[in-house]
């Protein structure tokens, strides 16, 4: 009882924009669907557009080896910041408010409950602070099956530049992102190809993107990927 009232007290003390720490991991798995376009988590998760999220709790910010972070995240990490519950909560609530130059193209999640559920879900994949065994992979829900030939296609960059002129009507050429349109500049080519084929196969839901992808040939997707990887 004392323990519970202590928690309630702490909850009141830290109320406001903060999520309740005791979210529902099952509901969080549903919230996490917003993240899977860029992040993988669970067994076999690798860095894609964003870094893999296994072990993120307690990890130094911007410290996954081989992942190219924005300068802002690297700087915060070097200054000693780690991903605590509170830091992750604030970051997910409004990424740019915490790290103004972050490349994470996520507008933020204002709903405290949803954040709490998401964090409860993410926490299952971190040894720290809670020692919970890793669960099966979930980050590949929208990954299409592609033949090695399609994945091996070398894109024609100049063609990609022309085709890209259709994309930049919504996705800004500078990589800046506002509203519900994510940035696509600087994506690794392989992830770009997978994402576009996922739209083409209607594994990803957005109808605008399904339409745009539906009439792109494999070579055209490869060309776009080559261009956006290094415009």
């Amino acid at each position: 009882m004392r323990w519970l009232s202590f928690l309630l007290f702490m909850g009141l003390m830290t109320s406001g924009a903060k999520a309740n720490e005791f979210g529902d991991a099952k509901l969080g798995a549903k919230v996490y669907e917003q993240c899977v376009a860029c992040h993988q988590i669970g067994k076999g998760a690798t860095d894609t557009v964003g870094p893999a999220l296994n072990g993120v709790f307690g990890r130094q910010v911007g410290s996954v080896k081989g992942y190219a972070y924005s300068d802002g995240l690297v700087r915060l990490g070097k200054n000693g910041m780690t991903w605590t519950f509170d830091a992750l909560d604030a970051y997910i609530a409004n990424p740019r408010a915490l790290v103004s130059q972050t490349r994470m193209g996520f507008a933020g999640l204002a709903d405290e409950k949803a954040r709490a559920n998401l964090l409860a879900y993410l926490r299952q994949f971190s040894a720290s602070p809670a020692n919970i065994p890793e669960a099966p992979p979930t980050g590949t829900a929208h990954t299409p099956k592609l033949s090695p030939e399609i994945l091996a296609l070398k894109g024609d960059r100049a063609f990609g530049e022309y085709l890209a002129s259709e994309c930049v009507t919504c996705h800004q050429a500078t990589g800046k992102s506002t509203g519900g349109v994510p940035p696509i500049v600087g994506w690794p080519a392989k992830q770009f190809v997978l994402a576009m084929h996922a739209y083409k196969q209607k594994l990803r839901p957005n109808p605008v993107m399904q339409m745009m992808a539906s009439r792109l040939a494999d070579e055209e997707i490869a060309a776009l990927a080559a261009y956006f990887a290094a415009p």
Partner: protein
Amino acid sequence: MSFNRRLFLELAVGSSAALAAPLVMGKAKPRVVVIGGGAGGATAARYIAKDSKGAIDVTLVEPSRMYYSCFFSNLVLGGVRTMNSIAHSYGKLASAYGINVVHDWAVGIDRDTKTVTLASGHKLSYDRLILSPGIDFVDGAVAGWDVTKQNKMPHAYKAGSQTELLKAQIEAMPKGGVFAMVAPPNPYRCPPGPYERVSMVAHLLKQKNPTAKIIVADPKANFSKEALFREAWSKHYPRMVEWIGPDFGGGKVAVDVDAMTISLDGQATKVDVCNVIPAMKAGRICELAGVNEGNWAPVSGHTMQSRKDKNVYVLGDATNQGDMPKSGFSANSQAKVAAMSVRAELTGSRMFPAKFSNTCWSMVATDDGIKVGASYEATDEKIKSVGGFISKTGESAELRKATFNESLGWYDGIVADIFG
């Protein structure tokens, strides 16, 4: 190291070739004149200047010093956006892309001598001309209305002072007053535009004047995203909107600006605000250039070249191209195909098959957005739709909010794509 004769020859050949390339054209630098600095013209000017890297001289003729986007101007009426947020200057096109931005009216085009005459009397020569003038109104389209009456009964279908005027009139409506809209016949700029406007006016009235009424007189039996708009009106603004189609006189409209009445089939009704959106035609410069057939300028879908003159391109609302709706998104999409074709012709750059796309988002209430879109390809006859989508009735609030947020991202994206 001794003098390397072969290297010298290569250098000499290389540099003379570089010098000779523009001379092939017979003059120092090929010139492109773009008339109209909206979603079509400004995009074309920017892409030609950007991608030719200074090899083409680009002049943009646009009378307004500030561009107010028609897209999102309905959101200004609804009190969701400010005028400032839809205002864009031409400064960056000049400073970052070297475009010669001339704030003047084009008043004449001589296609034989390839010259454009400006209202100031100056003449501009061109190798390629791009016309992107948007729309003008058909004279006599609505009995009792012409542009001299737009102060009393605004069209607000070219954004700017007209938008502000209409907003002021709506805000000054008496309690329980009547807002009337005369909707345009097909084809016209922004098919969902009048109905998004009804939604946004209703949104404003619901907060400030909840007993007010909206009547829409429409010459069309059905309209863009009709089921979605009707769903939104009955859900968010019950009993506020009355739509009168052609079966009930919506097509036989007359207005009286002094009496402030609107007559349907001869029956006059007193109204407090009357938004007249008349039938449209290509911006007048197309007529002066002699590139129209009827009210619009026919173009080739492969390049956006006028069917009358290969040295003239026409973009956006002013064109008759096929299946694409008249929208800022379409104009922006067409501009990139035209820019590619102009560069290919003047500098020999690569030409790819034309691809076009369009999506129209409409805001129907707070955090409630709907969309319709399609992609297009060029055939010899026209620009042809090759598939599209539309929002569904009964979608979740979450999805509608995501759609609205997407429209916010699109707005910033397309503005950056148009003005740099």
